[in-house]
């Protein structure tokens, strides 16, 4: 689905393709998630990495993009990088480069120690926010700063999803992009790539309970939800209208 002339939301994938940058934009991979959960007693089968790589591969083949911008939270643990995550991070960089994608990382709140890997991996890492081309990429746990002259703000962090009630009265949760404005500048919220952290159904939550401070200004009810799932990408209209189904 074409979001703007320059941005395509790849059909059925939680990935945006930005033509002018020839880049894929993704967010919230939370690599090493299962390893961290296992330490807390949840022995989730290891599928996150595999599923993410399948998705990226499909996107890379479709678009032939040259780089992949990870808009925060490439990994999961708050404090330190553990072996499990290190392996997956290493494999991630290796695999995307094999797909001829150069990784660009925006630091998220889960990425405190990722700097450590700048040198050994020769990685491009942005600390807070990054102006790339006409776009400002930021993770979303803090407000964006340099927004002047930006064509669009692109963030992650929120893990947006919507709840849809089917005719049988059952609620289905589907992750989604959110598209709207922040201080009159277009804003795009990317869905989470993580297999396990699909997020909350925003249309059933109060505005105050959202994670990112961005939504203190940007009214989520006026944002459009573009759902990704069941092999397709579909515009469901404004969140506010999805509140009463």
């Amino acid at each position: 689905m074409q979001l703007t002339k320059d941005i395509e939301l790849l059909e059925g994938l939680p990935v945006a393709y930005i033509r002018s940058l020839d880049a894929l934009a993704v967010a919230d991979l939370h690599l090493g998630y299962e390893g961290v959960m296992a330490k807390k007693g949840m022995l989730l089968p290891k599928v996150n990495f595999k599923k993410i790589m399948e998705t990226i591969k499909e996107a890379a083949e479709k678009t032939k993009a040259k780089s992949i911008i990870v808009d925060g939270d490439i990994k999961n643990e708050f404090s330190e990088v553990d072996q499990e995550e290190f392996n997956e991070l290493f494999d991630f960089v290796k695999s995307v480069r094999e797909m001829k994608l150069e990784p660009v990382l925006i630091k998220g709140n889960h990425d405190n120690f990722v700097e450590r890997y700048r040198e050994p991996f020769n990685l491009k890492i942005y600390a807070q926010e990054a102006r790339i081309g006409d776009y400002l990429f930021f993770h979303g746990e803090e407000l964006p700063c340099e927004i002047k002259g930006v064509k669009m703000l692109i963030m992650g962090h929120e893990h947006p999803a919507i709840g849809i009630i089917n005719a049988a009265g059952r609620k289905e949760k589907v992750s989604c992009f959110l598209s709207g404005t922040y201080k009159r500048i277009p804003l795009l919220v990317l869905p989470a790539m993580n297999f396990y952290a699909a997020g909350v159904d925003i249309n059933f939550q109060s505005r105050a309970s959202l994670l990112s401070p961005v939504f203190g200004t940007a009214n989520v009810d006026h944002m459009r939800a573009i759902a990704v799932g069941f092999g397709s990408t579909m515009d469901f209209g404004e969140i506010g209208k999805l509140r009463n189904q």
Partner: protein
Amino acid sequence: MIENAKQPFSDEESLGVLNSYVRSWFEKNFSELTPPQKYAFKLISEGKNLLITAPTGSGKTMSGFVAIINKLFDYSLRGRLENKVYCIYISPLRALNNDIYRNLQRPLEEIFETVRKEKGVNIIKEGIRKVTIGVRTGDTPQSERAKMLKTPPNILVTTPESLAILLNSSKFVENLKSVEYVIIDEIHELANNKRGVHLALSLERLGHITDGRFTRIGLGATLYPLDEAAKYLVGYDGAQPRDCLIVDASWSKKLDVVAKSPVRDLIYEDDQKIEDELYKEIDRIIKSSKATLIFTNTRSGTERVVFNLKKRFDYGEDIAAHHGSLSRESRLEVEELLKKGNLKCAVSSTSLELGMDIGAIETVLQLGSPKSVTRAVQRIGRAGHSFKATAKGEILVLNRDDLVECSVLLGAALKRHLDSFAVPQNALDVLAQHLVGMSLTQKWDVDEAYSLVKSAYPYHQLQKQDFTALLNYLAGNYVGLESRRVYGKLWYEEAENTFGKRGKFTKVIYMLNLGTIPDEVAVNVIVEGTKKWVGNIEEEFLTRLKQGDVFALGGKLYQFNYSKGMKAYVIPSSSSAPTIPPWYSEQLPLSYELANEIGEFRLGLSNLIKDHINKSKVKKLKGTKMPKEIDSYIGELPVDQKSKEAMYSYFMEQALFAKEIPSRELLLVEFTKGFDDDKYHLIFHSLLGRRVNDALSRAFGTVLAETLDTDIGVLINDNGFLFSFEEKPKITEKVLGEAISELSHGSIYPLMKKAVRNTELMRRRFRHVAARSFMILRNYKGWKIGVGRQQVNSQLILKAVESIDQNFPILKEAYREILNDVMDLPRAELTLSKLRKGEIKYKLIETPFPSPFAHNMITFGHADVILMKERHKYLQQLHKRVMKKIGG
């Protein structure tokens, strides 16, 4: 071989097996032997495995213990009694354990006292010691456990979970090697669920430790089939069940029962009047009886009844509620008061159904249907304290379906037709736990372990491939090598055919997480914008709510707004009726057997009524009198005259309006239009019990949704199920016929799997199974993981597991539990095949509005006092329209 014990032994034969001390104690305390004791003393003293069923007050517990106590005193008198466990008593209830302890402590003291008096100082010379008894449950303090390790009691009183822990406590196991007897009490509460499955494996492991056989004694109240229970108790030795004798004394107490309607006309009588009459009748029964035990079917109902009785009549502290939501202290207090005879009446949901001695109850009063014959007999059996007494029971019915159901139920009870129970078979999650437990104690040969497991009845049919798949799962073979250190719970060498212990934390994990009772969570309901808490709903109910839904809680209506975490935010609703049926998990499900009995009764009555209509050319209900043959047919059931009349007109209305009465031989399918909405309903009058209906409704729902290419709303009820459509669907006899033929063509298992895959039920049960199989640990390294956390993403874990293998053991078990334990897939399939073969006929009728037999179903079939008013008005309106058509 499993067989019935032939005949009772004479008192002299029975008492003759006892030594003089035990005998004189018994004769001093009891004037005679009760029916089960006339079998048990002798047979247990001969070391026979025994299953004893007998009602409350029949000296059941003593029938199991006397011969054992005798044996232990024999040992003591010969100076052979050691600091070892000789007998393990297991019951599912901690409260019952404490009761047993108190009840045995005294006799042991008394008997020893007589020995001491007679022997004097020789006691020390001959090494005669006290026979000791001790309780070990989750409540037992650490200090006492340590003491017990050093000086174990001769009789150990425990729960299934504590026994499992002892089997893995390397030191205590030494004390168990001497076990000669195991008593399982309340076997009917264990044999039909995973707790019992867990226990069955524990017993086989105990057998492995004791290196031989111990005598197994099972005690139960009312249960059927008995040979099934016996096999559960004794297990298998190779291909044959071990020997067991069955002593069935469950009918030694006489029943005096009746079903009553509080008013003559359950439809048109003013609802206030019905309520008034209901409470007047309750009051009358309480006042005319020494002590009354009232059963409601829900906890909220219990509170309401107590409240109303106190408000309306002059009751005070002499009436009390007893249910699972009350604190343990207040429950114990009520039990004590009952036992001492200080309560005039206790009102309970299910909690007083079994267990503790509660003293002399004269009458048991049941409000609404108890939904199963066995449960009714069990509850009514609480009345009449001694085995010679008659158990007096009354059921007050709340609507016409209830009336038919309760009357047939009591008829079946008098004929001793009980519901059957079923032991869950091949539960892989419970087995996973035990395999971890077993691996911790020794290195195992796979085949040896497999045959040990197969000797437990619930695993007798276990396939080897399921067993090894489970070992692979437990060994962590589904994750990469490097992660097995975390994921693996045991090691498994396929080439060497062995498995054993892995990791130093596994034992801690095992001990902290074993057990089969899932963590449940109550969702707090809060009035939006305030902090006012109005009650709890179940998590499963929450998952069905959508914004704007109106539901009932504590007798009031609320509109659901949204939920966050484990909180649901609502606003008080002024609408007149709920839009979503009350969650029925709190309601008891109608059993298959009882449903069949009702179907049989319907068949007989329906034939008589058709004859009557044809012969007398009856066109209108008004002015017809009940013919004699119908009067006497209904009169075979224990009902009063009011009820007979009510049943007669109920069936006549259905016959005149719909021309058909659904029965055991006829599945009536009614296509009709909703009464006060624009919806269309397809109603299956399938009287097969809730579990079968649950499965059948999903099967039909899936096929019909596909054929008609539309979404369908489903409502399941004890008397059938119905599908709702927003627009008029094209339902024809042909569509129905094709659905049946499609569904009866081979197994519906794959279809059912798909039908339940995306339900909340699956999410929740999968979480339970994952927790039981140690995939989600509830307790880990000092953390307790909350249910909310466990629930998070269980849908995604499910997806992840599916991507590994469709037959992943945890996945397979979740489906098995849903389709075989929650629902009844085998009987649903049986029904479908009967429909295809024409053994059950089906017929589609179209009605302008719902027929009388559908009324209760249309109004949510919620037979409870709650919201009776709203339902009642609605019912009246429906009924008026029917009567207008058939001319009442």
